[in-house]
């Protein structure tokens, strides 16, 4: 959790909420005059983190109607925008298992300048922290290529 974020969003962890998070991010980026290319990376990485919450965090809950929460904090400092995406789910080892494509974390690594996934203390759940520099010296997609994460595109059968 980020202390004193500028923006704190809390919503049911449902698919329709992910676009709302992108809207908030775009509004914040606009106010900070963030480079459009960096904003595009932010949107993609944050979308992947939120999608993980929607798809995987609460797979062990029996009542499908009662979704858990998706919480997002945005904090701008002088050098970077930090985004925290949190759930109160069963953690990374949940029975939801492997995501369909397995591209979420590799994309987060490739599109953010720093990131960290951690189990939340005490009340359970997972938090993904991502930091996006306003000015980059290196493209993070070159520093953390997706090909080096073990993810591979499907290979043709022939």
């Amino acid at each position, binding site marked *: 959790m980020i202390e004193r974020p500028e923006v704190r969003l809390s919503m049911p962890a449902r698919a329709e909420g*992910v*676009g709302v998070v992108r809207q908030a991010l775009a509004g914040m980026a606009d106010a900070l005059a963030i480079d*459009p290319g960096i904003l*595009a990376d932010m949107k993609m990485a944050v*979308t992947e983190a939120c*999608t993980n919450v929607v798809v995987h965090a609460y797979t062990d809950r029996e009542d499908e109607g009662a979704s858990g929460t998706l919480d997002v904090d945005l904090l701008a400092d002088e050098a970077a925008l930090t985004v925290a995406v949190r759930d109160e789910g069963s953690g990374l080892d949940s029975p939801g298992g492997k995501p369909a494509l397995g591209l979420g974390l590799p994309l987060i690594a490739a599109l953010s300048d720093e990131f960290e996934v951690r189990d939340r203390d005490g009340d359970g759940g997972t938090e993904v922290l991502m930091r996006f520099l306003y000015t980059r010296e290196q493209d993070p997609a070159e520093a953390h290529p997706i090909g080096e994460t073990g993810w591979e*595109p499907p290979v043709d059968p022939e």
Partner: protein
Amino acid sequence: METNPIALDESEEGVVVVLVEGEHDIYTAPTLRERLEEALGRGGGVVVDLTGATFMDSSILGALLDARRRAQEAGTGFVVYVDADVEPGVQRILDITGLVPVLPVVNGRDDALAAVRETQDPPAAASPG
């Protein structure tokens, strides 16, 4: 009117073009899967037009990869296209995931139609050659 429409364009002979416009993610991925299914069900080639897409995530890539696999199994051509004005974020996710040669992704509708017709298995009798 839908903000993020996915429509089928059936004006091309033997090919269905799936037009993906606006923002697409886990929320609209089921709709895209339905449209792709519908397009594959026509029996001809399938072309996906991403020139009007302003955002797409890995859920959309998953839907496209599944459609590609199903097209391969059915011996049907499947090609995705962008153009020079494609949203940079859309081009970037295709580039960094290495999916451009895989899906494959080509530049422009004409190239996409030519490519899909090339990979298409010749119809049993109708085609002259």
